[in-house]
């Protein structure tokens, strides 16, 4: 009374990318998206602590905030905002290309996203260099003619934009890994989870900047 090959014709062969603890590819993708969002919530709270410090000290030292903000280069900040929005578009198109299995579109859009992300960081480098030249970096060399409270503003400026830039660098590393996977035909309509999750991360970093730009660069423009 043996039952050989009881499973052989009852099921299709599982997808090679399906891990054994998931029922099917759809559940696996859903679990990954949910897991990524849990991580992004911790990121929201991580940046949230710095935004909290921004809100509190801006309430305490409103004049220092306006004077500090007016030292930032609004044009470079605005250009970088648009650069990041373009990079989010190309990221969304890269994920879409993975969903429909269009390999060349994945590669092209990933390369464009890497290029726009790099442009953002290069612009940021020139902005930081100008802050050092103008003695706006908090510490021993901060311009003594300025209200010391402005050091709080610039501390938060460097912390917020610096950690944001660090996230951009991590994102670009992830994009290179996705580029390698796309190059090796890893993504198709059945399996594109790494690309989807990398896209979520990249868009999150864009969202942080969407708040940083008006709160850091634009608050003193009407004075």
């Amino acid at each position: 009374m043996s039952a050989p090959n009881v499973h052989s014709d009852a099921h299709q062969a599982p997808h090679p990318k399906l891990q054994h603890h998931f029922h099917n590819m759809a559940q696996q993708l859903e679990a990954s998206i949910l897991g990524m969002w849990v991580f992004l919530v911790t990121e929201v709270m991580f940046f949230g602590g710095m935004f909290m410090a921004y809100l509190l000290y801006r309430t305490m030292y409103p004049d220092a905030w306006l004077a500090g903000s007016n030292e930032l280069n609004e044009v470079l900040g605005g250009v970088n905002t648009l650069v990041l929005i373009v990079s989010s578009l190309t990221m969304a198109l890269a994920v879409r290309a993975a969903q429909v299995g269009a390999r060349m579109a994945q590669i092209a859009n990933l390369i464009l996203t890497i290029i726009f992300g790099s442009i953002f960081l290069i612009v940021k480098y020139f902005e930081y260099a100008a802050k050092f030249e103008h003695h706006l970096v908090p510490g021993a060399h901060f311009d003594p003619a300025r209200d010391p409270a402005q050091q709080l503003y610039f501390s938060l400026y460097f912390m917020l934009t610096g950690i944001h830039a660090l996230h951009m660098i991590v994102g670009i590393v992830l994009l290179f890994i996705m580029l390698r996977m796309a190059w090796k035909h890893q993504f198709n309509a059945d399996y594109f989870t790494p690309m989807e999750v990398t896209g979520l991360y990249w868009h999150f970093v864009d969202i942080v900047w969407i708040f940083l730009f008006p709160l850091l660069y634009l608050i003193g423009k009407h004075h």
Partner: protein
Amino acid sequence: MSHVSSKGLYYTIFASLCVLTVVTVAIARVDLGAMNTPIALAVAVTKAMLVILFFMGVKYNTPLTKVVAASGFVWLIILFGVTMGDYLTRGWLGVPGR
């Protein structure tokens, strides 16, 4: 198996984000008194919602993912609300050392 948005939708969202960026720069030049920052934040929240719903595709995710995504911002509001509720009311008692 999962929702695939049209390229046209992505281009529309992209154009909306560009327009809203121009709007936020333009409004910042007008003196609206205490309303400048709330309006700038309203524009930023609108932009963030466009990115979250369409670029990140939360609109097409499961209800569980939607709740988790929203929870981050709920906790953020609690963080801001409770902390500012503390600092902004410390002067009310007039007790030395508070």
